[in-house]
């Protein structure tokens, strides 16, 4: 799989990364090399193999629906870039 500059632009958009036009070519080449490595996987037929989700086949643990955490809003918001009245502030989303 050889990625084109346009592919890199699309992936960057999905990943919410901003790419300088000057770096797109390098990324296209690096990512294509990594994907070429990944394509070695195709050498093996896995049609009857169950995908592995957990090494020990453990399943999701459940717990009683009880409050176990205390409210630490102030502590958590103390490290936020921009807060106001207990909310996280970002640029206007809806006009």
């Amino acid at each position: 799989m050889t990625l084109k500059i346009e592919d890199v632009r699309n992936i960057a958009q999905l990943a919410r990364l901003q790419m300088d036009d000057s770096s797109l070519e390098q990324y296209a080449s690096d990512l294509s090399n990594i994907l070429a490595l990944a394509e070695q996987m195709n050498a093996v037929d896995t049609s009857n193999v169950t995908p592995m989700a957990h090494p020990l086949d453990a399943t999701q643990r459940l717990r009683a629906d009880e409050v176990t955490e205390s409210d630490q809003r102030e502590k958590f918001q103390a490290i936020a870039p921009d807060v106001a009245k207990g909310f996280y502030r970002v640029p206007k989303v809806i006009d």
Partner: protein
Amino acid sequence: MPAMTTTITGIQRGLAAGQFSSVEITQDYLTRIGLFNDSINCFITITDDLALQQAKAADAIIAAGNAQPLTGVPLAHKDIYCTDGIKTSCASKILDNFIAPYDATVIEKFNQAGAVMLGKTNMDEFAMGSSNENSYYGPVANPWDFERVPGGSSGGSAAAVAARLTPAATGTDTGGSIRQPAALCGISGIKPTYGRVSRYGMIAFGSSLDQGGPLAQSAEDCAILLQTMAGFDPRDSTSIEQPVPDYSVQLNQDIKGLKIGLPEEYFAEGLDADVARVINAAIEEYRKLGAEIVDIKLPNSGLSIPVYYVVSSAECSSNLSRFDGVRFGHRCDNPVDLEDLYKRSRSEGFGDEVKRRIMIGTYALSAGYYDAYYLKAQQLRRLIKQDYEKAFTAVDAILCPVTPEIAFKQGDKTDDPVSMYLQDIYTIALNLAGLPGMSIPAGFSQGMPVGLQLIGNYFEESRLLNLAHQYQQVTDWHLQVPEMK
């Protein structure tokens, strides 16, 4: 620094006998860090005030006769573990201003045990790398040769232990990040079974692979640290509910008659001849200790690298989506809208390797490609695991090299991500399988340390520590210290 004060067991004895106080030994280490950190760059943050305060508290506990095994023992922690009130950067610009609001479970356990924290160690950004060259805070030097890499991603921890700037340190291992730097720096490190050590508060890279563990000067010290680190944690959804054995009990057991498997694939082309010589000499030592050496096969080993880079990148792209400039970490200046805020904050905050992996992972998980990459990788992962299951029906442990070559020079592999990935060829399969593995020093090549890897079956950390300790009783490679000028 006198030899006896550098190991955890030595410090325990000294503290118990009143030969020195925790404040004194902590001050010794802080002084040593002050002397060498500029040239090695193994610490991102030195917590000197906190360390002395913890040491003082520890001395009071010791005086009152209430000491636990690690009370007053100085340690360093990889900067991937959240530490309440202390900068936790993961060696990334995006977290350069992040003061963690809580402690990771591992940190909480060390605090409860009365250990002293000297500081937070350098690493590859978000644990992505094998050379510690991907750090926002600059590369770490290998104490054996400052021009060479210490390995990664726990490169700062490994270098700090090797340089004796800390008796031991914590690390994390997603594809070899404890074992590979331990090998390249000539120290001991263990990556436990997946789910053995809590991942709570350990900044996630590849959640189905990540596992915390200790880096220390001997198997004996690793056992002491793992004792504190291991255990079920309800706050980690993949933590395994299984009792923790006493890891020191089995250390002195005779290994006569144990079957050790040598995987043919791990001794094939690509392994440096002089590294192979060191490993073969170690195999002879094990033979002398009475172990039975058996040839085994792990036929799907060759697939480990592609499978690993698909799985770990996919998981990292998902995990790192939390760094968005909204709730914590770096935010770009004057965002015009929310998308601009996300994109510029992330692009300014992440380094190149992290971006590459996010992009690969995003691609592998995107519509139309999921089956071909992520699903396929998870299927192959089962085949890799089955290879090991089969091997462990015939042997008690597996022995192989940790890395194909000694520590390379800084800058040698930075231009080619794929050649860097190939450094992990012997370490990543067991992360995919979730098995425990250990790296111990086994000799030198061109004056640089060579590591020996021991792989065990699930939850058989005690057996690995036993095998490593027995080897360290008849060899002195683990006692070698770099001469730093």
